[in-house]
Each structure stands twice: as structure tokens, then as C-alpha cells.
């Protein structure tokens, strides 16, 4: 990479734009200073002491400092007519537009959640005024979305600078200004209708609208008045010279989970802004706990969907496994009537589940009936096993047959071995990752002079990344060493079997030495299943992206004929994936049963569609050949956040299914738009 940028090439810059960047930089520093001095409080204040800052304020201080430095750098670049200044300007304007949009949304989103949560206006509300205000806000919202859409789709907009801007943007601008004119009074009107409607919803701060709109509109014009020349497609040049939307688009298009990531961040921010109850350990714990079992199934369903099939029977398989597990521990397993201790019972039940998955796959490849039909049939069939097995609408409860929950005795060496395995994995990761990262730093440093300040900046960025990854790895290593040392001299430990699988996570479940334990808030319901879920996600992510099996899964779903022509055993892949889904469903069933040791005949009913929803939101194509495990994780988190967030923000929780439905459609549209090519 020997890229150099000719810094002295003359460029055409409107002086107004140059001074605009200077103004933005000064503004950013001013904002940082104001927050630091306590004159500009943000977020929910615990107390009124100006010296106490909450995390939002710290984040904003750091971000505005970075932004200010970037803006000043842009100013110097533009005033010296450097070519690199153009790249800076392009990024700066893009980021500014984004911040502006975020500010606008931070007013609009809580407002609409409020609208959802208060269907019948309280007394003293003028309905007509309310409707006028509603439509004004809606119009502005649509216009903002239109502009962002144009920004990402219309490359010409960013190329014609100083000349005629592309015509389409004008319509958006007109629409936007119209919306703005109606919306500002409408928004104020709207706010006045709800002085203090519900206690846990923040009053919309209409005051944020104005700076938001300014930041949004001004850079748009700035964009239009900076001309840029032709650049070659060298990697480094590309990084700084591609227009931001192009750069983001190419980056996003390479990752199936990009849409899900955007959605995740947007929904996370929306709920954080909407209610103060959202970003708390209690709520985060309840989200994670609620979706961890479904998330585990979603891993399998994603892999299956990538190979071009899907499974409607997971809910019923979950029921069968849960019933088998519980029955084997209490009344005797449904087939042989054996009574087992918990661990063999769990393996036995998961094995039964895997057999059911094999049955699905076997029917599919022998008869070539579409998987929708096959699994629709087995969904009903497997459900009837549970309905018959647990006759009479009873609930199979562990406590009806045993006095106490099962206890497992773990040798201290168990933990030592576990920690040593962890250390080995860690060491290997460090061995693979760190040299590359540091080499990149050294490389960036060596070509720094050729690339001017941009070179210095990229050296700094890569340096920060390398240092933080090294520090994180070192800390994790220390923690594992401390666990090893702690348990080497320790004794055997008695834990509840159910607690290992899916116990509640308090301070005592942290297995580290003294120095590494931290307090988990008492009311936060973190559970072990969350840990297992993340481990499974990582494991299957590696399987899918970095093994030949993963490669053949993609090939089977993407073009079955081509896969077969290259000698891949398509039937094996499909059957194996069905077994995999069923096994993961079995694991989820064990979680669910240990969390609440009782099985009713309808356990897992309706899960199949929720899991498919998570997978689709996560970016997997229903037609196969495309998707990611990380995407399924994000999809599960999105569904969980919506479920919990709606309740917390006071919206009718019955709207949950509807909101998820809307998100699915938006997600698919987003995924298709971001990829912007072959939908097949």
C-alpha cells in the first residue's frame, strides 16, 4: 500500500463552507465545555450537583471533542486547499447530518411512543389541535427519512458540487421544509397538550428540534458546494475518497447483519430516549433472559434457513424435549419408563429431540416435499406427543415428585480445567489477532508522512484499537489465571444442577477470585443461559464462516445445483442441519425447564414463528444462501427489546406482535435496499 495523496492539488471551495466548518468546530467545543461546567444538563439527573456527571454527559463530552477536532482539521484542510481536506469535509458533513437526524428523532420517537401509550387523550386536550400536530410531525418525519434515503441512494447528489445538484434532492428539500414549517408549531402545540402525562416518560424537549434541524440542513448545502476530483481505487485512497454513503454501502453490503445492527442501535436508542426505565440492569437482564432460549433456537434456524429450508416444528420439539426431560426425572421417561438423574435425563431428552430433527430431514430428502409442508405436519404430530404424554391438561412439576432441587458436586479441578481451556483459546486468539493489529499500526506509521494528517489519524485509530484489544485480552487472561489459582487450592463445590444450566446470576456465581467479582444488582435477573447463548453464538459463527461445512451450507442454499456439481452431499447437509436445529431446540428446552421446573403440554407453542421472525430480522434470506449468526443474535435482541421496551414505556403491550410484524417488513426492505442487488 504505497498510496499517497497529493495534498497540494488545488480544489474549489466555497469560503462560506470553510468558515461553516470552523463554526461547527467551535460549537462542538462550546457544547463540551458547557456540559463539563454543568450548564447543559443531559439525561436524567440523579441530583442537581453540577460536578456529578452521568454517562450520557461523559459520552457527549468525548464525542463533541472528537467532532470538534475533526471539524477544525477540516477547516485547516479546506483553508489550505488540500485535497485531503475534501475527504474530511465529506465525512464531517455526513456525520453532522447524522447527528442532526438523531436529534430530530430524539424528539419525534418519544413523542410517538407517547402517542401510542395514551390512546385516549386526557381531559383538557383539544382533539383537533392534537390531530393537526400529529400530522405535522408525521410529515416532517417522512421528509427526514426521504432526505436520508436520497443521501444514500443518490450518488450524483454528492458529486455535483457548486454545479446543479441532482434534481431529486430538491423535492426532498421542499418536502422537508414544508414539513418543518408545519411541524415546528405543531410540535410545540403537541407538547403543550401533554404537560405531565405519565410519570416515567420524559417530556419531549422541543428545544432539541431546532439545533437538530440546523445541523441536518446546513451540511446538506455544504455538501453541495465542495467539488471533488477523480481518485483511483487504491485501498487507502478509497477509504478516504469514497463518498461516505458509498463507503457505508459497500461496507454494509458485505455483512448480512448490517441491517439488523442498524435496527438494533435505532431501537435501543429509541427506547433509551423514550423512557428512563429502559437502560437499567433490571431491564437489560429481563430482555436477555427472555430471549436467550429463543436466541439459541434462532442459531439453528438461521443455519437451516441459509441452507434453503426452514423448520416450523421447533416449538413442538421443544415441548417433546421438555416433557421427556421432566418425565425422565420424575414419573419415568415416556418410552421405557426409566427414571434418571438430571444429567443423563438432559442428554437423553436432547437425543430424542435430535431424532425428531432427523425424522424431519429424512422425510424431506427422501420425499422432496417442501420443508414448509413437512414441518407443518411434524409440528402437529410432535405437539400431539406432548398432549398425549401429559394427559388431561396436567402440568408435570418437579416439586410434586422431589422434595429438593438436585444438587451437583463439582470438583475444583473442573473449574481449573475449564479455565485452562479458556486460557488456551485466549492465547490462540491473541496469537492470531495481535500481530496483525500491531503490524497495521506499524504500517500506518510508516506511510504516515505520505498521507499527511490523515495518515497520523489512521495511525492513532489503529493504535488505539491495537492497545485496547491487547489490554482486554491481557485482562481476560489475568482473570482466568486468577480463577485457576483460586480453585487449585480450593475445595469441591456444591451447586444446584438447575443453577448451572440456567441459574440466576448473583455475585456468588462469579467464579473468579476476590479481586474480580462485582456486584450484580439484586433485582436484575441475569441467568446462566445468557452465557451459554453467547458461547453458542460465537461457536456457530466460527463454524458457519470459517469451516468447509459452513461453506457448503451457504452453497446448498445459494445454488443447490452448483453445490451438487462441486461434489457436496446436499442431502447430508440438509439432514444434518435439521438435526442441528432440533439439538439446539433441545438445549433451549433444558434451559426453559430448569428455569421453571414444570412442563405444561403447550410449552413452546408458537415459538417457531417468533424464532423465524428473529432470523429474518437478523438478515437471513428466506430463499436461502444468505444470513449470519450474529444477525440472529441481533434479531433476538431486537424482539426482546421491543417486548420489554413497549411495556416500560407504557405503550399497550398487546401491540407487541404488531410492532414486531412492522419491524420484520422494514428489516427485509432495509436488507434488500442496503444490498441493492440480486434479491434471488
Amino acid at each position, binding site marked *: 500500500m504505497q498510496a499517497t495523496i497529493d495534498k497540494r492539488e488545488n480544489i474549489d471551495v466555497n469560503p462560506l463552507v470553510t468558515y461553516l466548518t470552523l463554526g461547527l468546530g467551535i460549537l462542538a467545543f462550546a457544547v463540551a465545555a458547557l456540559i463539563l461546567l454543568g450548564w447543559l444538563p443531559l439525561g436524567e439527573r440523579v441530583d442537581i450537583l453540577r460536578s456529578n456527571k452521568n454517562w450520557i454527559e461523559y459520552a457527549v463530552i468525548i464525542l463533541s471533542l472528537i467532532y470538534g477536532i475533526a471539524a477544525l482539521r477540516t477547516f485547516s484542510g479546506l483553508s489550505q486547499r488540500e485535497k485531503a481536506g475534501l475527504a474530511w469535509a465529506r465525512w464531517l458533513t455526513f456525520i453532522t447530518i447524522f447527528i442532526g437526524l438523531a436529534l430530530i428523532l430524539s424528539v419525534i420517537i418519544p413523542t410517538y411512543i407517547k402517542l401510542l401509550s395514551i390512546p385516549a387523550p386526557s381531559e383538557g386536550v383539544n382533539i383537533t389541535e392534537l390531530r393537526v400536530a400529529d400530522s405535522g410531525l408525521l410529515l416532517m418525519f417522512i421528509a427526514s427519512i426521504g432526505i436520508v434515503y436520497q443521501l444514500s441512494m443518490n450518488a450524483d447528489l454528492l458529486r455535483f458540487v457548486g454545479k446543479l445538484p441532482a434534481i431529486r434532492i430538491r423535492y426532498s428539500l421542499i418536502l422537508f421544509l414544508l414539513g418543518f414549517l408545519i411541524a415546528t408549531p405543531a410540535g410545540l402545540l403537541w407538547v403543550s397538550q401533554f404537560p405531565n402525562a405519565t410519570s416515567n416518560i420524559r417530556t419531549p424537549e422541543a428545544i432539541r428540534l431546532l439545533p437538530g434541524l440546523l445541523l441536518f440542513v446546513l451540511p446538506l448545502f455544504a455538501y453541495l458546494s465542495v467539488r471533488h476530483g477523480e481518485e483511483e481505487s487504491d485501498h487507502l485512497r478509497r477509504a478516504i475518497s469514497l463518498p461516505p454513503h458509498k463507503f457505508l454501502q459497500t461496507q454494509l453490503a*458485505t455483512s448480512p447483519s448490517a441491517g439488523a445492527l442498524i435496527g438494533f442501535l435505532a431501537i435501543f436508542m429509541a427506547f433509551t430516549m423514550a423512557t428512563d426505565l429502559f437502560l437499567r440492569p433490571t431491564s437489560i437482564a429481563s430482555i436477555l433472559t427472555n430471549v436467550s432460549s429463543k436466541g439459541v433456537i434462532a442459531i439453528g434456524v438461521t443455519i437451516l434457513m441459509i441452507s434453503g429450508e426452514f423448520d416450523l416444528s421447533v416449538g413442538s420439539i421443544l415441548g417433546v424435549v421438555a416433557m421427556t426431560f421432566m418425565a425422565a426425572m420424575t414419573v419415568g421417561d415416556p418410552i421405557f419408563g426409566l427414571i434418571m438423574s438430571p444429567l443423563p435425563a438432559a442428554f437423553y431428552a436432547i437425543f430424542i429431540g435430535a431424532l425428531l430433527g432427523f425424522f424431519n430431514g429424512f422425510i424431506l430428502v427422501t420425499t422432496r416435499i417442501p420443508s414448509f409442508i413437512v414441518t407443518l405436519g411434524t409440528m402437529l404430530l410432535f405437539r400431539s406427543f406432548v398432549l398425549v404424554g401429559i394427559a388431561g391438561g396436567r402440568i408435570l412439576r418437579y416439586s410434586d415428585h422431589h422434595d429438593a432441587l438436585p444438587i451437583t458436586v463439582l470438583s475444583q479441578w473442573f473449574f481449573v480445567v475449564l479455565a485452562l481451556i479458556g486460557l488456551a483459546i485466549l492465547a*490462540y486468539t491473541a496469537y492470531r489477532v495481535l500481530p496483525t493489529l500491531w503490524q497495521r499500526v506499524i504500517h500506518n506509521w510508516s506511510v504516515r508522512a505520505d498521507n499527511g494528517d490523515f495518515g497520523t489519524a489512521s495511525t492513532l485509530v489503529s493504535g488505539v484499537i491495537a492497545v485496547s484489544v491487547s489490554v482486554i485480552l491481557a485482562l481476560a487472561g489475568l482473570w482466568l489465571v486468577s480463577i485457576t489459582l483460586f480453585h487449585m487450592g480450593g475445595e469441591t463445590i456444591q451447586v444446584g444442577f438447575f443453577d448451572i444450566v440456567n441459574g440466576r446470576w448473583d455475585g456468588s456465581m462469579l467464579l473468579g477470585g476476590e479481586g474480580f467479582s462485582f456486584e450484580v444488582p439484586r433485582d436484575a435477573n441475569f441467568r446462566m443461559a445468557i452465557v451459554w447463548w453467547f458461547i453458542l453464538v460465537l461457536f456457530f459463527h*466460527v463454524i458457519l464462516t*470459517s*469451516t*468447509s461445512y459452513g*461453506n*457448503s451450507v*451457504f*452453497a446448498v442454499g*445459494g*445454488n443447490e*445445483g*452448483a*453445490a*451438487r*456439481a*462441486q*461434489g*457436496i452431499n446436499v442431502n447430508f447437509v440438509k439432514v444434518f442441519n435439521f438435526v442441528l436445529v432440533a439439538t439446539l431446540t433441545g438445549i433451549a428446552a433444558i434451559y426453559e425447564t430448569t428455569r421453571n421446573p414444570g412442563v405444561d403440554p403447550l410449552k413452546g407453542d408458537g415459538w417457531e414463528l417468533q424464532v423465524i421472525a428473529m432470523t429474518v430480522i437478523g438478515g437471513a*434470506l428466506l430463499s436461502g*444462501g*444468505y444470513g449470519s449468526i450474529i444477525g440472529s443474535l441481533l434479531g433476538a435482541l431486537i424482539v426482546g427489546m421491543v417486548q420489554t421496551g413497549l411495556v416500560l414505556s407504557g405503550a399497550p403491550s398487546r401491540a407487541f406482535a404488531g410492532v414486531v410484524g412492522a419491524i420484520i417488513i422494514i428489516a427485509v426492505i432495509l436488507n434488500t435496499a442496503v444490498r441493492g*442487488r*440480486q434479491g*434471488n
Partner: protein
Amino acid sequence: MVERNSTALVEMVDIHKYFGSVQALRGVDFHVEAGEIVGLLGDNGAGKSTLIKVLTGYHIPTKGQIYFEGNAVEINSPHNARELGIETVYQDLALVPLMSIARNFWLGQEPTYNIGPFKLLDKKRMAETTLSALRDVGIHIRDAEEEVGTMSGGERQSIAIGRAVYFGKKLLILDEPTSALSVGETQKVLDYTHAAKDKGMGVIFITHNISQVHEVADRFTVIQRGRKLGDFRKEDVSEVEVARMITAGEVPERLRLFDPEAEGAD
């Protein structure tokens, strides 16, 4: 009759294939030599795909014998055919559009390295080898991580051909490779076909349009209604004559001597 060399790469002798009462192939002889491009021509339904499917193991012949490199072989499955070194490039079945070039290139035989019991893909080697292997046959791509779906039909065919060459296949079968391509792209695919020939591979080029194959083929085999009309060296026939053979089934008078069926009829 064209002289037959006993060292032919593939020789199919007296192949019959019946589907119930439908006689798709009625005693066809066919051979390809190493370093030779054979145009397999015939109208739709003439039996040329059936013949190729027999060769690639999708169909088992009702009667007849196949020799590969002089040895009698039974090709019972596509897997069999692959093992022998027969690679087929279908128009739409060549590559997986949603996967990267490198992953397509190595599909089914990915290089791996071991970590304990796990085998992980050697992605760096996959990308580098793909670029260099394709460069060897004259295909220049920018980035092996690019998705195949972003490429044109001709580029996809080319990559599939490059892949077959790299993995040392002996016989390359191209099924209507250029029928949906633009003129420029067709030319490129033909060039790569030539590159494959120069590496010593035998190439069968299936088409119903003589103009697509006349430039590169050394020999034409024309099939009509399940029978072979004959083998013709390129220098012996004109494009128009072959076209007439495909459509009308008429062999020009001066070539009849070389036609085995015509001889049998006399």
C-alpha cells in the same frame, strides 16, 4: 470416417439410452481427445444433453460402453465423473451467486489448517490462490472476496472454466456456455476455452448454434434424433453446411463417405 485414435481421452461406444418407450439415444459413438475442442451440435431434443448426462453420470446408459483414458469405466453417479476428472460448466449451475469468488473457487475442496480437532478455512490462501490461478488462464479480477452475484454471465463462466483448469480436470464440458452472452463476453469465454485446451484438457462444447463454436472447435459431432450424423473436421465443412445438417439432417454428398450410418445403410 475420421481416423480414431486408440488413446482418446474419452470414448463412448454404441451408447443407447431408452426412457420407457422413448429412444433418446440409438447407438451413438463419440470420442474426445486430450487437447481437442469438440463441438457437440444438434437441435433441441436431438439427444445431445442425454449423451452428456450419460457421460457425467446423471443417466446410466441402457446399452453401451464408456472408455476413459483407454480403460473401460462405469460412471454411475456425478461423483464418479468428478473423480475421473470430468468437469461440467452449466450455464446457471456453475457458481453460487451469493458467495465470494474465492469461496466458489474452492467449494467442496477448501484448504484448511488445524487447531486441535477443528479445521478452519485458510482464507488467506484461498484468496491468494484464486487470484493467481485465474490470472494464469488470463482472467483478471480485482478482489477474490467480491460476490459472484455482482459479476456478468461471461465472467461467471470464465471463473468456472478457470477453476476446472486449476484443479487439473481432464475433460471440460461446456453446456451452452455462450448462448446468453454479449459478443465481447462470448469472445472472452472462447479465449478461456482455448486456454483450457492449451493446458491439455479435452473440451466438449455443447450448442445448437454452429456460429458460437465454429471459431474454436477442432471437430464437430452432429447428433440428430438420437443418432450421430457424423464427425467432421473443421477444415472439411463450412459453417453453413453444418447448420444445414443440424436443422435438416442432410449430410452433404461429398462427406457422406465419412458417415458411418450412411455406410451401414448402403
